């Protein structure tokens, strides 16, 4: 695959103008999105904490992430349990999981409707050029490339990640229901290829989501305070070059 070239007259990011700059607060996240994000956070914590309590009930750890018999990661190493003296408390775990799970479902439904309306999903799902931009974006993220390809609300890596996380959440809920009501929802179990495969999907999706949260937090820290604050305030403060006439020519992001 050859490098992607953009017409030279539309540079990806304008180099900082040597002249005057001004700060401007630009809308980034709607109120609805911010609410859904911050409701999701504690609910997800409760779901993972209670899910762990359920998982620990069977200490044989039968779910191992691996490929071709090569063990990549035992889903939850016993050493962690013994180190932190975490006892399994199954009954309470189930009760929390099956009651608070509904909040996760409702929040997910709200978010999906939010995405579906007004074509907002286009911000999330990368188009063909977006997919082609992934290597360049990745190169920028690890410091091998100075400029970011042109983007909408999210860059192509964010698009890929956030779309993936939405799909993982859908899988989590679907597999969760399959495990929860395997007779009444037997069609769902069949869809996953059986009860055990549904469990495997549920745990694997959980690991994926945990990894996402880890990367997400690291990236938020890297992006700087002013960018991170936008998920709370809704606005992102950007530096903008001011042309000699006083007319703004192009906005430049303060932080990646």
């Amino acid at each position, binding site marked *: 695959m*050859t*490098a*992607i*070239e*953009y*017409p030279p007259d*539309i540079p990806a990011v304008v180099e900082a103008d040597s002249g005057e700059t001004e*700060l*401007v*607060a*630009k*809308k*980034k*996240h*709607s109120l609805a999105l*911010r609410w859904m994000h*911050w*409701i999701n956070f*504690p609910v997800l914590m*409760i779901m993972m904490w209670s899910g762990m309590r*359920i*998982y620990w*009930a*069977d200490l*044989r750890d*039968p779910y191992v992430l691996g490929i071709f018999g090569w063990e990549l990661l035992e889903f939850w190493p016993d050493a962690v349990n013994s180190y932190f003296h975490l006892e399994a408390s*199954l*009954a*309470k775990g*189930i*009760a*929390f999981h*099956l*009651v608070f799970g509904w909040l996760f479902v409702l929040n997910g439904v709200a978010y999906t409707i939010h995405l579906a309306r007004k*074509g907002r999903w*286009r*911000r999330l799902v990368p*188009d063909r*050029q977006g997919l082609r931009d992934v290597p360049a974006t990745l190169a920028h993220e690890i410091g091998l490339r100075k400029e970011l390809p*042109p*983007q*909408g*609300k999210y860059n192509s890596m964010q698009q890929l990640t956030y779309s993936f996380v939405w799909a993982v959440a859908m899988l989590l809920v679907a597999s969760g229901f399959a495990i929860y*009501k*395997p*007779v*009444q929802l*037997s069609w769902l*179990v*069949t869809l996953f290829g059986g*009860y*055990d495969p549904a*469990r495997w999907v549920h745990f694997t999706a959980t690991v994926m989501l945990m990894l996402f949260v880890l990367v997400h937090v690291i990236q938020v820290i890297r992006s700087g305070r002013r960018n991170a*604050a936008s998920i*709370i*305030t*809704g*606005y992102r*403060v950007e530096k903008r070059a001011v042309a000699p006439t006083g007319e703004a020519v192009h*906005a430049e992001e303060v932080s990646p």
Partner: protein
Amino acid sequence: MTHDTLEEFEAREERLRDATDAGEEIGLVDHERRSRRAFLSFAGLGALGLFGFGLVQNRPEDENIPDVLRAGLDRNERLWTSIERDGARARTFAVSEREELRVNGRHGLRDVNRDMIQVDDDEAATWEIELTGTDGSALDPIPLSSIKADFEVHDMVWEHKCIEGWSNIVHWTGVRFSDVLAAYAPDQDTSEWMVLRTPRETDGGRVERVYSSAIENYTMLHPQTLLAWRLNGEELTAGHGSPIRIVTPLKYGIKQLKRIGSIEFTNDRPTDYWTERGYDLHAGF
């Protein structure tokens, strides 16, 4: 390919602009004010969330879990019961797919020294399941010999699921509980709940503690609910609940009581061994 045509490129640029929030811009002073408000509301939300979680954790307990969670579990059950499920059968498997089943729960099967109580052939020959009707009266007991001789015997293979999170495909041999009930206590078949218990006393001695399991009418009368005496073709061992146990693919293993000593019919919400210890009363699929 190197890049899109200029027209395509421009069209995409247009789309990307649409995909942003079309940049509503506000001044920094206004932003300060709005930020403060937003930080405060979300901090408030966070505090409320923590407080709420603490509140749930510290609610008075209803059978070993916070009462709101107990109410939530019951509400869940009402929801699933309200959804059409009549005729729903658990998936069955071929006998050749059956697996070993480990002995897990031993409650109600051990004596006061915590040794497993064996039920020998002599005791099994005279074993009876005692019945108590919804009005509290003792009904005619069901002799084990009759269960084995007088009803159509079924072989069923399904996935036995433990609430701890493991499952095995197992092969049971027994008779439908609904058939036995129709013969022995047909007037009790509208009873909302049936509470099964292990015997308090056996020929092998007094049991350490009685184990119990409450199962609702729907599951008890389901065609896949059996009184079983064989597991994977072998007579039940003491650990698996000799001489007779209840099995159903509609409930977790904790509900499938081993070594049935008695069954109580009731219309009041019952409790049982694991429900008292914080588990869902229904624990069904």
